[in-house]
């Protein structure tokens, strides 16, 4: 097995562009409303209530946000565990995006914690409740954010020419990578397990003890999908040579993961005898089928070799997959969750502004990092100006 010698270089280029300016402007309302949230309380800016206590700050920013940040996890599994080093060139952009996604997901948790100054209780033995699913999530994500920083560290050390330190870090990198595969497997599954204790308030189409398996598999699928999605956009946006053949191969892996997910999903419904509920007209069953249709579209495109080799189709499949798994999270926490009679939740404008601001900040930070740090592979002609 001969390994391609890889080298990376910062993309350089201008930091102030129409795209980065728009992204920066989108963070401004978020900053304003965040200030209000911390001065006047959560009720001043959000539509959260005592029926639907978790809104988009949890479901979008944390649940979907960290699942979007599973690229590093999914690729590490492929590259280091299944020993597929041909995918290694995709690793650095994925780790960078994952680090930003998880760091901001962690920050979003603070926004949603009413008594945020007590956050450290989650990590303190005297307070910790090991029976709580959220305890596992909190501890695991906190550690994983540091692991992602260590995974990103070689890029930064390389940038500043600290090769001795990089060599030193590389000696223990195997342990870091192993933890980087283990921890997301743990907390991404727990993000699903959190629903179990909510019991009968969650519609039977979504309430199952297989939630951890379904959540971790779909997070993995989102990881591969985001690698394709982000790879395509970066390729176009930064005018890099197309990586389509490699991304198409990721697409084939993704196809199998999604297929496995669908099989488990329907086998579970059939086993619990609730499949007929999917055919009863209603909000939950409608959303269920929209979700399944999006999954099915992704699988169909990805299993047909001629289709998945077309960049546009591959991109559509990845987008469809991301939409499907995001919808799965939205459906299980919002649509399938019964907040009580006459209680409705729809996010307020300030609430949405904060979510949009966090996402914009994340993309902005990604653009800046890849322009300043050696994240993308250097392709032939040096871009150094």
């Amino acid at each position: 097995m001969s390994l391609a010698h890889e080298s990376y270089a910062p993309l350089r280029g201008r930091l102030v562009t129409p795209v980065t300016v728009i992204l920066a402007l989108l963070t401004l309302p978020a900053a304003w409303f965040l200030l209000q949230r911390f001065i006047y309380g959560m009720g001043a800016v959000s539509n959260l209530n005592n029926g639907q206590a978790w809104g988009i700050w949890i479901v979008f920013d944390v649940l979907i946000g960290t699942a979007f940040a599973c690229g590093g996890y999914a690729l590490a599994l492929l590259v280091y565990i299944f020993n597929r080093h041909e995918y290694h060139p995709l690793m650095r952009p994925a780790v960078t995006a994952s680090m930003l996604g998880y760091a901001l997901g962690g920050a979003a948790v603070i926004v949603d914690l009413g008594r945020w100054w007590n956050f450290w209780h989650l990590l303190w033995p005297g307070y910790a409740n090991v029976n709580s699913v959220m305890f596992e999530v909190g501890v695991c994500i906190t550690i994983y954010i540091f692991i992602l920083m260590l995974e990103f560290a070689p890029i930064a050390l390389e940038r500043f020419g600290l090769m001795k330190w990089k060599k030193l870090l590389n000696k223990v990198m195997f342990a870091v990578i192993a933890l980087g595969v283990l921890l997301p497997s743990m907390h991404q599954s727990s993000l699903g397990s959190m629903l179990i204790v909510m019991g009968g308030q969650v519609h039977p189409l979504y309430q199952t003890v297989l939630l951890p398996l379904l959540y971790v598999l779909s997070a993995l699928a989102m990881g591969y999908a985001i690698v394709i999605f982000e790879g395509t956009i970066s390729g176009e946006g930064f005018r890099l040579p197309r990586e389509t053949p490699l991304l198409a191969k990721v697409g084939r892996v993704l196809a199998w993961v999604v297929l496995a997910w669908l099989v488990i999903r329907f086998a579970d419904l059939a086993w619990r005898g609730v499949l007929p509920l999917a055919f009863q007209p209603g909000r939950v069953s409608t959303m269920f089928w929209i979700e399944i249709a999006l999954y099915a579209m992704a699988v169909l495109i990805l299993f047909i070799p001629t289709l998945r080799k077309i960049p546009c189709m591959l991109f559509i499949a990845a987008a469809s997959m991301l939409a499907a798994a995001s919808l799965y999270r939205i459906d299980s926490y919002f649509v399938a969750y019964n907040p009580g009679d006459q209680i409705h939740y729809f996010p307020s404008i300030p609430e949405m502004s904060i979510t949009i601001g966090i996402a914009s900040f994340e993309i902005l930070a990604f653009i800046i990092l890849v322009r300043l740090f050696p994240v993308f592979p250097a392709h032939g002609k040096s871009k150094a100006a």
Partner: protein
Amino acid sequence: MSITRRSFLARILGSGAAVASAATAGAPVAEARGNKTLPPKAVGLLYDSTLCTGCKACVVGCKIANGKPLSTPMETAYLDDTKELNPDALNVIQMYVNGTPSAKDREENGFAFFKHSCMHCVDPSCVSACPVQALQKDAENGVVTWSRDACIGCRYCVMACAFRIPKFRYTSAFDPDINKCQLCNHLWAEGKYSACAYVCPTGATLYGPVEMLHKEAKRRLSLKPGEKFRTVRGRIDAKKPQRTRAYTVPNYKQHIYGETEGGGTQMLMLSAVDFHKLGLPKVQRRSWASISETVQHTLYSYLVFPAIALAGLMAITYRTARVTEDEEGEET
């Protein structure tokens, strides 16, 4: 070439077998947990919808006992119109109305009252959900309490409670609290007990040891509709119980709500109208806390599986990671 595909597969299978054998060995560690059982000195309430006149003395009494602001001045406390639980109302009386409500405790063209306050579950979801032990169930008396000092304000308890009890104060930035009935356990030291039961004129809400309340509930269900019966008001275990006047035995539904719901609760309810029509949720007998904790401890008990998985992963990455990173190193 450091790793062939074959040796790699062999290793994957090897670590898989290790995990599988550990799974069998570890089985007793991660035993399924059943429902929890009633604490030895469990106290609670018995609420009999048929004895409730909807006077709402308990709603006001609760607010006073817990230092909550009254929604109307004391002179007009009878006008209190708190319809739902909120951070300043830990107990409300709600009303069931059907058609032209011309008779009490009748499902059709009738009306009935019911009490909404913490059920003090035997195996509470909120206690299982809370990541920082802010919600606790007393091992002796079983009262489910909330701690201001521990709480991080994540509101998992609000999402988890099948009875929709805990109420978070969204309007506060610097001290948003979770509010729920604690059976007035802060008054016990003064020899007092739950204000709702203390002020209830008819004995519809009765305080006492759960076992005594359960016995009393069963006694009422065994009575013949139309006959007369007397009971006590206030607390059932008083030295000199206050006897009520004689009531007519209603057409009780032959079910004690809270006997099995969610694995049982320390608040028991009787009614002549179907409990679900009153707005009380159907909650299965196997507690959801026990299911959640069984899943969680099967995966994480003593971190056995994560440790094995980490060892397996490191055995693989020890080779694979070094290969890549060294190659990379040569380049630079």
